[in-house]
Structures are given as structure tokens and as C-alpha cells.
């Protein structure tokens, strides 16, 4: 603010009060002093929306940041340098982190490979296993509800000449185990089914799938990016051979992930990134020690907090669901209501368009469909594969609850949804027709000639 102008005002008594608050009073009054105040509301005054989009990413836990910072300031050595103390310290820290990741899923630390994220882990697992065993086995099974990284890898393999079966899912989002058994052939090398779906939150029956795959001699890969640290996972009990982990979904840093590759019985992989032979030759390149240590800390904290977190998240989920169903009629949960991770609530609001509802509740940061597919105008392929009708698929919102969500945020969400959904429904002609008792499916939209 201009001090000379302030002096001018004080000296000439342009204002009644001789204080700073008077100056502000002048600025809000928008007097002729063009330099005082700002015409539009400054960015500094705007309040941020509350964050309910935990499936797209999570904030970094302060404890994780604490463990990472010393590597940015002091222990900056390359973990692969074997000749000096900087390298040895860095290596020890990275190996500790690897151990923590392994403990979270019940694996051995020699079976963990650090990657740049779950997308890279999925690519390495699927393309690597398929290409290695392609002489004898060239069939891969996956589901239609997988993450784009898995589906796209499979599409690329199809172009290389592999056969891929995209299994359908039941209406509740879970796969049919009998159908899976029939789909497995002697040429199948890999089955890839995600543990917890990122859009609807359903938990697949991992133990049963693992048992089935083991009995048929097929490798089982699971994209557990949304599942690790949130539901208990044990790769030995569940007979999992490959598992993808994502750092930024478990309150860790972005840009790091891990891939679990079973050693007994050995799973062979043709590497995608070749070079210096780091990470058992499967993923060459300097391990980002700062990010790896962050991932390790995030896994350790998740292991300690899993029970507390799941109790808290279930409590908030119940509160949110009760609040929505009591205050907003005609809503439908997408995905199985029981076999789900409670941090993910995907709801369709009838007679309301999804994007306009998202704009109306701008004070809540959530998403409709998944972040990776939100650039396109099409409704989410996951919802379509559940058999959800097009209009309901368009009007779905996904709320993500996490460790740091509070009861006030949930209550605020319920209040805002109540008023905005009501307002949008008042504007909807479809809602009017439905209220009058007209069956919307009998409407002739096309005035044929």
C-alpha cells in the first residue's frame, strides 16, 4: 500500500479516524484513490475447497515429509555409489525403506523393486511377463474395470500378437470366479485383476483368485495402488505373484511406486528400462533415494495406522452415507455396498447432470469418474461396464475419504449437496415429468417423420 498516500490522508484529515482500519474502510468504499485497495477480490481472500478426492491423490503425511527432508539436505549420496560414506548411508536408508514396503505386504525385501509409480509397475509386470513367456504362453486375462495403464498395456500386447481376454464384471463390480476358471486356458501366462477399484471402491476376492491361479499354474498380478496400507494384504496368503504399489495413494510422495515380483517360485520378467542393471536388472536407473525413503516411511506409517484409519474412515463413511440418503432422495451407490473399501463412495444422483453438480459444489474437491479419464466427455467406462445407464453414469460423483478428513468436512458436504441437488432438480424438466408419474423410458425423444 502506498505510504505517501496514507500520510496524505492522515495529514489532511480526509477521513474521520486516524487509523489503519480507516484506510481499509476507504479502500472498500472505492474512493477516487485508484491505487488503494483492489477492484476485484484478491486471491489471498479466497478460501480453498475441502479435499475429498483421496483416490486421485493424497496429501503427504508430515511424518513422511520428515523422513524425506534429511535426504534432500544432508544424505544426498547416490545409493549405488559403493566407494564412500555418502553412498553407503543413502544405500542403507533405501534398503530400510525397501524393507518397510516389503513388511506391509508380507513379502521379502529382495522381492521389491522401486519404480516411478503404479503405471510403470503395471507396464513392467504385464509386458515383462507376457514377453518373457511368449514362446509357450501367449494369452492374458484381465477385466474391463482395470486402470487405464493395465488396459493400455494389454492393448499394446494385442498389437504385438498376444491374445487378451477382457472379462466382464457383475453388476456389483466383482468378477465371477466360475467365469474366470472357464476363461483360463493352458496358454494363459498372466491374470491381472486390481485389488480395489479406483472409481467405485469394490474389493475383489483376491484370496480366491490367487488360489485358482496357483492351481492352474498361471501368474497373478494385482494393481493394488488403492489397496496397500488400507486393507490388509499378504502376498503369500493370497498367492499373489506380482503387485503394483503407488506412493502418492498412501500419503507418500508422487513419482515413486514399487513392484513386488515373487522369487519363489520365480517370476521372470523381460525389463522395459535397460541400462546399469539396478533393481535386479528389472528396472535400471538410479533409485530416487528421497522418494524411495518417502515411500518406505509411508508404508511403515500405514502399517501402524491401518486399524485406526479404517475405524475412522468407516465412521466418516457411515456418517456421509446416512447424511446423503436421509437428505437427498433418489440416489444410488455404484458398486457392491459391502465388499468395498470405505474410503471411496461413488454415488449417482438421478435427474442431475454430473458436471453441473460438480460446478455447483465447487467448495468440495471431488471428482466424477476417474482423474485419468476426466479429459474426455464420455462417461466412465467402469460405470458403463457395471451396466449403469448412461444418464446415471453421467450424474455420478466420487467422494474420497482419507486419514485427514474430518467430521466437519463431511457435515459441510452433506449440507451443500442437499441444497445444490435440490436446486438443480428444480431446474430439471425430467424431474418434473418423473414427479408427475410419467415413465421416462416411454418418452419419444425423436419426432420421426
Amino acid at each position, binding site marked *: 500500500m502506498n505510504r505517501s498516500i496514507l500520510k496524505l490522508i492522515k495529514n489532511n484529515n480526509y477521513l474521520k479516524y486516524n487509523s489503519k482500519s480507516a484506510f481499509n474502510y476507504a479502500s472498500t468504499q472505492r474512493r477516487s484513490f485508484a491505487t488503494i485497495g483492489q477492484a476485484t477480490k484478491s486471491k489471498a481472500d479466497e478460501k480453498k475447497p475441502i479435499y475429498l478426492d483421496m483416490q486421485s491423490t493424497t496429501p503427504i503425511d*508430515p511424518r513422511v515429509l520428515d523422513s524425506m527432508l534429511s535426504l534432500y539436505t544432508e544424505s544426498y549420496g547416490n545409493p549405488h555409489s559403493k566407494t564412500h560414506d555418502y553412498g553407503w548411508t543413502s544405500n542403507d536408508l533405501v534398503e530400510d525403506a525397501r524393507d518397510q514396503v516389503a513388511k506391509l505386504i508380507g513379502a521379502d525385501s529382495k522381492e521389491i523393486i522401486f519404480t516411478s509409480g503404479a503405471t510403470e509397475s503395471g507396464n513392467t509386470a504385464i509386458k515383462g511377463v507376457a514377453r518373457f513367456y511368449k514362446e509357450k504362453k501367449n494369452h492374458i486375462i484381465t477385466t474391463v474395470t482395470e486402470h487405464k495403464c493395465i488396459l493400455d498395456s494389454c492393448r499394446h500386447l494385442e498389437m504385438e500378437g498376444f491374445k487378451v481376454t477382457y472379462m466382464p464384471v457383475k453388476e456389483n463390480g466383482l468378477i465371477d470366479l466360475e467365469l474366470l476358471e472357464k476363461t483360463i486356458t493352458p496358454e494363459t501366462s498372466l491374470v491381472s485383476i486390481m485389488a480395489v477399484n479406483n472409481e467405485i471402491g469394490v474389493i475383489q476376492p483376491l484370496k480366491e483368485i490367487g488360489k485358482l491361479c496357483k492351481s492352474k499354474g498361471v501368474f497373478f498380478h494385482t494393481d493394488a495402488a488403492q489397496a496397500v496400507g488400507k486393507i490388509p494384504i499378504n502376498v503369500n496368503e493370497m498367492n499373489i505373484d506380482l503387485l503394483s504399489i503407488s506412493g502418492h495413494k498412501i500419503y507418500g510422495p508422487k513419482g515413486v511406486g514399487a513392484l513386488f515380483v515373487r522369487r519363489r517360485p520365480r517370476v521372470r520378467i523381460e525389463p522395459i528400462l535397460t541400462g546399469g542393471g539396478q533393481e535386479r536388472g528389472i528396472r535400471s536407473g538410479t533409485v530416487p533415494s528421497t522418494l524411495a525413503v518417502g515411500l518406505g516411511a509411508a508404508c511403515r506409517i500405514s502399517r501402524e495406522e491401518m486399524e485406526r484409519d479404517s475405524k475412522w474412515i468407516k465412521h466418516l463413511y457411515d456418517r456421509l452415507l446416512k447424511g446423503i440418503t436421509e437428505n437427498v432422495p433418489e440416489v444410488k451407490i455404484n458398486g457392491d455396498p459391502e465388499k468395498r473399501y470405505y474410503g471411496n463412495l461413488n454415488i449417482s444422483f438421478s435427474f442431475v447432470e454430473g458436471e453441473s453438480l460438480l460446478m455447483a459444489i465447487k467448495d468440495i474437491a471431488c471428482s466424477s469418474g476417474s482423474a485419468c479419464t476426466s479429459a474426455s466427455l464420455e462417461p466412465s467406462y467402469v460405470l458403463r461396464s457395471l451396466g449403469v445407464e448412461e444418464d446415471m453414469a453421467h450424474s455420478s460423483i466420487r467422494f474420497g475419504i482419507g486419514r485427514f478428513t474430518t467430521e466437519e468436512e463431511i457435515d459441510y458436504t452433506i449440507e451443500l449437496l442437499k441444497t445444490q441437488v435440490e436446486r438443480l432438480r428444480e431446474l430439471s424438466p425430467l424431474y418434473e415429468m418423473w414427479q408427475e408419474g410419467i415413465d421416462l423410458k416411454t418418452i419419444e425423444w425423436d419426432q420421426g417423420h
Partner: protein
Amino acid sequence: MSQKEIVLHLYRSFLRASNKFSSYNFREYALRRVATGFRENKNKNESETKDLIKESMKDLEMVKRQSLINSMYSKNKLVVE
């Protein structure tokens, strides 16, 4: 100081440090987690409490560091504040 007094002093220090987080979510979580943590370990015997006190001293240092860093890079408040 008796062990009970030490624990109470530690609890108050934790609450004071947790309130210094400028980010709403971290502040609320820290307060909640400290309360839960102390409540869970209410009925431990003396030697176990001694180990817990040692560990929580380190955690207290971490909370102080992180709340300071959080306030250095803080931005606007949330709509619920």
C-alpha cells in the same frame, strides 16, 4: 516427577505443538491422533510406559519441526474454517 506427571506434561506439550499446524487437516488429525494414542496406552505398566515416553519424545520433536515447516509454506484457509 512421577511418571504420571511426565505423561501429562508430554500430553500438554503435544497438544500445544499440534495446534501450531497451519493446515486445518493436519492440525485436526494431529490433535485427534495424540488423544487416541494417549488413550490407547492408558493402562500400560511402568516399564512399557518408559519406552513409550522415550518414543513419544522423538515424535514430539517431529511434530514441532513439521508444524514449523507447514506454517512456512501455508496458504489460504479452507471453507470450513
